[in-house]
């Protein structure tokens, strides 16, 4: 177990720059997710940490030692791959034993057939068998140890891949989208299992995913990556409630955050001509954007800030997501409503929308968050 430091890592493939100076400190025992859309460089970053890819610049430190030029096999990291990458010709037990055999046995002890009679080999083989059994018990795959990977289901293979990673005690676990090949139900189950495993092992985990739900539910911190940069690295609730960048706000949260244009006149902000209870600095740009989470919007009849028609409704049982086509704007906004409000949300129904000023996230024209916005005393939505 160790702390990890990534210092100003860059990576270019030919002319395209995939990573543009990434720096990240990961504490011992921390669970950090690298999340972002495909092509954002998160997998490349993980591979650089693992030593499978060479960075074009920058340094990787594990427990204070520079490992940038150390081979992957000597970095003492474990990795779980998206495709699981089990050895198809070995049984489950042999698959899990490989990292231990390679690290604890010498070359002659690993030889087929004659290796067994080499001095010390049988003791080590026993130790390895115990470790494999223990890992298999933890992951509840002890009944599968004699099978070949081809005879396992996707979920079972995924557990074997996890078993192979945790059979030894590496400095950190690297997981590259380990859940993306599982079906939805199994994914939810395995998600909580991995989080529990992390708590039990108290090991450093670096988890790459494009699924923001996975990142939100498992991590101590989320590093949102886009275009080869880390936009924000913070605990899940901060990333969700207090994003630094409009791209972070848009990527995290499902359904997506609603983005609406606002104009600044003097210190006041106007949404579709209506004055918002927010004041900006005089040097703020004239055109701004506000982000409103679906749960920040509420249905209101008195003095609505926006009006529109219900265009589509998704009933999830415990909550309802409705798409409202706005009268004032070409786009649609999504609101979250309670089941009690369902009767107001019949298709085509006219609705008014309001929100609390403190829930509005204000972004500049280039997407950077403006934090010097103040909510004024009388909030419109409180009237509703």
């Amino acid at each position, binding site marked *: 177990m160790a702390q990890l430091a990534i210092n100003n890592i860059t990576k270019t493939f030919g002319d395209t720059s995939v990573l543009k100076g990434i720096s990240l400190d990961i504490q011992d025992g921390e669970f950090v997710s690298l999340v972002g859309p495909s092509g954002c460089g998160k997998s490349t970053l993980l591979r650089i940490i693992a030593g*499978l890819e060479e960075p074009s610049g920058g340094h990787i430190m594990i427990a204070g030692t520079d490992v940038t030029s150390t081979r992957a096999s000597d970095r003492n*990291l474990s990795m779980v*791959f998206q*495709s699981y990458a089990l050895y*198809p010709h070995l049984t489950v037990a042999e698959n899990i034993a490989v990292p231990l055999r390679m*690290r604890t046995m010498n070359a002659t002890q690993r030889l087929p057939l004659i290796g067994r009679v080499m001095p010390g080999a049988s003791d080590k083989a026993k130790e390895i068998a115990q470790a494999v059994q223990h890992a298999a018990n933890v992951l509840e795959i002890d009944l599968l140890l004699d099978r070949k990977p*081809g005879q396992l289901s996707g979920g079972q293979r995924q557990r074997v891949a996890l078993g192979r990673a945790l059979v030894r005690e590496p400095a950190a676990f690297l997981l590259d989208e380990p859940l993306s090949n599982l079906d939805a139900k199994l994914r939810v189950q395995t998600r909580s299992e991995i989080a529990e495993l992390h708590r039990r092992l108290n090991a450093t985990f670096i988890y790459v995913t494009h699924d923001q739900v996975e990142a939100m539910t498992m991590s101590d911190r989320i590093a949102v990556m886009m275009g080869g940069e880390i936009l924000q690295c913070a605990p899940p609730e901060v990333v969700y409630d207090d994003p630094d960048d409009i791209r972070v706000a848009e990527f995290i949260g499902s359904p997506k955050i609603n983005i609406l244009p606002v104009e600044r006149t003097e210190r006041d902000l106007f949404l579709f001509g209506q004055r918002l209870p927010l004041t900006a600095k005089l040097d703020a740009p004239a055109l701004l954007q506000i982000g409103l989470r679906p749960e920040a919007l509420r249905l209101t009849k008195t003095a609505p800030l926006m009006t529109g028609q219900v265009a589509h409704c998704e009933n999830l049982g415990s909550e309802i997501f409705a798409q409202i086509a706005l009268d004032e704007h070409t786009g649609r906004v999504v609101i979250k409503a309670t089941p009690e409000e369902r009767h107001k949300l019949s298709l085509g129904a006219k609705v008014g929308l309001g929100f609390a000023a403190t829930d509005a996230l204000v972004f500049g024209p280039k997407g950077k968050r403006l934090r010097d916005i103040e909510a004024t005393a009388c909030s419109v939505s409180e009237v509703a």
Partner: protein
Amino acid sequence: MTRDWWKHMVLILGAIIVLAPFYMMVSYSFKSPGEIDRGEGGFFGRQEMMVDERCVKLRDPNRDEIAAAAPHFPGKTDNEIRLALLAEAEADCSMRPIVFNYSKAFTEAPLLRYLLNGILVTGSIFLIQVVVALPAAYALAKLKFWGRDTVFALVLFCLLIPVHAIALPLYIMLAKLGLTNTYAALVVPWTISVFGIFLMRQFFMSVPDDLIDAARMDGLGEFAIVWRVMLPTAIPALLAFAIFSIVAHWNDYFWPRIVVTGNRDLFTPPLGLREFKGDGDGSFFGPMMATATVIVTPLIVAFLIAQRRFIEGITLSGMK
């Protein structure tokens, strides 16, 4: 009648053309020389008792033998004894044609020795080819290094060079090294198989990169990856290559004929066939075809055994 009948006709015709020589070979190996000459007796021949003329000639009794045999034939003239001895020899030398052909195949030339040579030579060639081709193919398929594409282009280019074009320079090189008439001369020129490198490289391209990366994370070095990960996953491709390599070198007549000039102990099975080529004393088609059958049989048996594994392997499963 389906509309595909003509396809089957074409295929059957093709099969007949391919199988006809084998049919002749096996059939001749059963028949007596007379039946072969006259082209009769169907597939198996009539299997009538025949007399091996050479065997009888060798036992033609001389004066001493007649004198020695005289006590067994009391009251007979020398000529009568001679005829009796000849009749005895004829009885001893008569046998079924099939027995004649196959026993001749093994006695006339040291066929077992040739077969052993064949196994030794093809075995060593294949083994060294694998030792060379697997790491080379792995490097060409999965490692990134400067000039990789050029090297691969060279490999492809080497596929185009016919063996016969470089036979003479190769022979001269071996002769200068004093290696003609050795096993090395039979083996060394074939140890680097560009076809093997090409075939294995194409197969390795289909092995997921993740598998190799996982092996690296597990602490395997690059050579360990070749032998412990790539080799076991490549068994089907290796079997395919084995068939090409072993068939080609087991049946090779051209190269052994060039480098093995005097020493009959180094003859490979195809060279053994030369022992029966018809010189002055008539043709030996029966034993010759028996030898040919004996030479071909191990290959066919090996293929039949490997076939299941081979076809199984083509639909490679369990990788993903």
